[in-house]
């Protein structure tokens, strides 16, 4: 296994590879959180309103941890989130799509597909060679566990009776976008060779398919054949996105722009 690496140890190639990995992690979590909170007041029970808000809060928390690591590599929060061109975000298109109107099945299924992938990706980072990342993965994994359980408990319920058709519709619509989670990074070889991630993207994809397909089929759903799915032209990972992303990016930045790049709040201020 490669030696543990810190920011000052990285050469230019290692840094580029690590940044690609971190941008994917951070952008996925941030955008997934942004979409989830749209549903916060529409979930079907008060408990699920709270669960959804809580999951979104975790996703923002995790995004912040990953953006922190990019800040350690000399980026600023403004560059990373508020002023980065929309076509430089690297999240998968799955998390940027608006929810089909009024469709709880869409929320639940999307969360399941995403959280199952997130679990596997984090597992492959537990033994990362990049020390600042290794420090954070365990904590994030602990918090993610509940997300997957929550999504599965709802899927189990929705797959019974009439609502199964809605889940099937959501699956047909979202599965092609979920596959974009596993588009190989430009720096895949460097990511793996340097031990930043201990499993290849191709193997992660296989493991994810072997996880989600049997489970979804056990609920009576028809899962599209992965290699025969017509893939959307926007892949997300390479900076190409659906039109929905431009709209969402403009929305979440509006207040930042109106306030002309505010500093973070400080209760009490510097007291010394």
């Amino acid at each position, binding site marked *: 296994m490669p030696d543990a690496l810190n920011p000052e140890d990285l050469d230019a190639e290692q840094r580029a590879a690590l940044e690609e990995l971190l941008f994917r992690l951070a952008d996925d979590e941030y955008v997934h959180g942004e979409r989830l909170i749209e549903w916060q007041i529409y979930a079907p029970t008060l408990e699920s309103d709270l669960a959804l808000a809580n999951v979104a*809060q*975790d996703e*923002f*928390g*995790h995004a*912040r*941890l990953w953006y*922190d690591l990019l800040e350690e590599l000399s980026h600023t929060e403004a560059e990373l989130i508020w002023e980065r061109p929309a076509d430089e975000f690297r999240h998968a298109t799955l998390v940027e799509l608006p929810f089909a109107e009024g469709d709880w099945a869409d929320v639940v299924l999307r969360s399941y597909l995403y959280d199952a992938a997130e679990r596997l990706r984090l597992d492959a980072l537990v033994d990362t060679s990049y020390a600042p990342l*290794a*420090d*954070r993965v*365990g*904590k*994030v994994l*602990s*918090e993610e566990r*509940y997300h997957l*359980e929550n999504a599965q408990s709802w899927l189990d319920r929705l797959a019974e009776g009439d609502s199964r058709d809605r889940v099937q519709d959501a699956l047909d619509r979202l599965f092609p976008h979920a596959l974009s989670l596993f588009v190989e990074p430009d720096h895949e070889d460097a990511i793996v060779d340097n031990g930043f991630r201990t499993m290849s993207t191709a193997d992660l994809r296989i493991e994810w398919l072997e996880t989600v397909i049997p489970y979804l089929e056990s609920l009576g759903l028809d899962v599209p054949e992965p290699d025969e799915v017509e893939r959307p032209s926007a892949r997300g990972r390479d900076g190409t996105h659906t039109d929905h992303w431009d709209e969402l990016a403009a929305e979440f930045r509006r207040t930042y722009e109106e306030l002309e790049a505010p500093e*973070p*709040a*400080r*209760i*009490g*201020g*510097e*007291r*010394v």
Partner: protein
Amino acid sequence: MSADDAPEATDATACGYTEYVDGEVPEGFPKTGVGAAGVEADIWDALYEIEDPEMPVSIVDLGLIYDVRVVEREGEDGEAKTLGIVEMTLTYTGCPARDYLENDVRCAILSAGVDEASVRLRFTPEWTVDMVTEAGREALREFGLGV
């Protein structure tokens, strides 16, 4: 009622989804500043004054502080500067009071008379409620929260 009628103890826990129930305290945690001396001891004292934003308990007694140290380094003007470093964690990653806490800790470091302050977040080991000190447990019990 006789002992035979007493309800059996159950192993039910309050909420299966909190991480607050189990968790082992890693060797050497919680850190409380015992044995610290000089400026480092002063920093510990100042940290004890900072309370969690939601509960009247110090962040040291909550077990959030992982390390305090003071090092010397050369400043930009070539003069030797003292740098106070605090490593700390958060109970959960989505903590909305993170900026406030970091700022409070930075102020606590500077109040001990060092030239510069650095606050570094660490998430290993993962914080659990078992890292709360005895004094912290007492403060939380008074607040109405048994841990």
